[in-house]
């Protein structure tokens, strides 16, 4: 079953009514999400909690995901950015989506914590470092900081279409590197 899903796109995985499909989507992106949170919180435990809540939120919201718009990975990181903003606002990780889904908290062992710390140091940096500077910046502003295309365009004094193009091309390149270029 897992091999069957390996050949499917992120869009297919999110729109397939199969639990294992979401597992495959998780497999593809969990490391980059962990790294994203590890870099921003500096705490492996918080990064793990936020990662769990992000994927739980994605699972709860996947029926609202519409293929053809923003890439699935951008959709996922938009959720991640919102969970991070919630965390900064409240000072704690609210596990609401996990509670709604009746998920059990997953403890983070010492070795796992070290792994998360390393992901924070390496993963995103190495993924983004190979992108052209304009694409790297556009992705960071739009996907990571959750700013709108129009806002970035006004700030950079370019058209909104240009910003969309940079984000789209950058994410396509990232997907290709992560093995999800479908």
């Amino acid at each position: 079953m897992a091999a069957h899903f390996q050949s499917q796109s992120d869009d297919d995985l999110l729109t397939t009514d199969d639990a294992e499909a979401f597992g495959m989507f998780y497999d593809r992106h969990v490391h980059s999400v962990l790294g994203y949170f590890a870099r921003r919180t500096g705490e492996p435990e918080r990064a793990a909690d936020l990662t769990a809540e992000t994927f739980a939120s994605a699972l709860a919201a996947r029926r609202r995901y519409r293929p053809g718009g923003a890439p699935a990975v951008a959709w996922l990181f938009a959720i991640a950015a919102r969970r991070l903003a919630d965390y900064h606002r409240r000072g704690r990780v609210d596990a609401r989506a996990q509670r709604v889904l009746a998920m059990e908290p997953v403890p983070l062992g010492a070795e796992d914590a070290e792994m998360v710390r390393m992901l924070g140091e390496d993963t995103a940096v190495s993924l983004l470092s190979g992108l052209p500077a304009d694409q790297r910046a556009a992705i960071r502003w739009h996907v990571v900081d959750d700013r709108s295309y129009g806002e970035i365009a006004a700030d950079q004094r370019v058209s909104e279409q240009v910003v969309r193009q940079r984000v789209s091309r950058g994410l396509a390149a990232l997907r290709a590197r992560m093995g999800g270029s479908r």
Partner: protein
Amino acid sequence: MSAYIAELRRELVDAAERERRRSAPRRALARSRRPLALGLASAAVVLAAVLGIAVLGRNAPEPVPAAPRIVATIRVGGQPLDGTIGAGSVWIADGTGRVLRVDPRSRRVVARIPAGSQVTAIAASGDAVWAVTSIRLNVHGHQVVGIDPTSDRVVTHVLPTAAFGRLLEVAGGTVWVQSDMQAGGPLQRVDKRKDRIVGDFGRSWRSAIAGQGDVLWTLDVNGVLERRDAATGRLLARRPGFAAGQAPTAIAPAGRGAWVATGEDGAVTRVTDDLKVRDRVELGARGPMAVTDGSLWVTTVDAKGINVELVRLDPGTGQVLGRLRLGARLPRALVAVGDEVWAVIGDGTVLVIR
């Protein structure tokens, strides 16, 4: 793959599967409704007018409880051995010779009561808490102590007439103990006026006793199931050979009957008040059980003896309503606290599960 990433994946896939099952009937119903919607709407108007609105919903299914989850973890310390509820509190034998009093609302330890020596079993009623403690200087090795909930102090010491172990229950205002478990001794009770253990209510190698209201259920290793008047000890019903050879381990009264767990086949079986067998479910039952408001909770362990799960069942039918993985955390006791079950774990924690 790291343990964390693998475990989170399992949680997500399980949650996705639960969502899929939950939404499938709704989607199927929505599909089937469309062609009939207009006709049904008309019929509903007529029916409502004829029968009255109150009829609607009579056949609606009972709400299914949500999948079980841990809602809080209480760190009590020590190596807890047993737990019970009574006198408005949850009481934990912490494995270090103390009885802990926990407020069920705040979930905080509000008193730590020295019992004098190791507490191996604990039971409570509305106005008293009783514990089995070990004593070195007595030839029988154990005694029963009574704790006064108003002062949080041990106020009664009851010496046994024969050795006994963990079996202790309070029901019908009477404290029951199984004496001389090594030799199939008698079921006895505590005479509170004389602070003595007295009586002989049948000799047997009992493996479980449990009370509910005015009824005391007992079960022995040969599968003899008994139902007694908890106040007097009078035998109400007896069924020999029930689950013979299946190593009965636990009994949980529920409604007009009880559920019995058998370790050999890992099954739980529902028996009625007149000891007739009704439902049987094979789960891998290997530990304590408890009945909360609307749920039977059964501790299960997989065939490798590694992974522990708490399974929630409908106490009326035995239908499995949900499962909660506990990993290696095997509950020493399950305490029913309203609609929550508190799992007493040997690592010094109590898991509050709903």
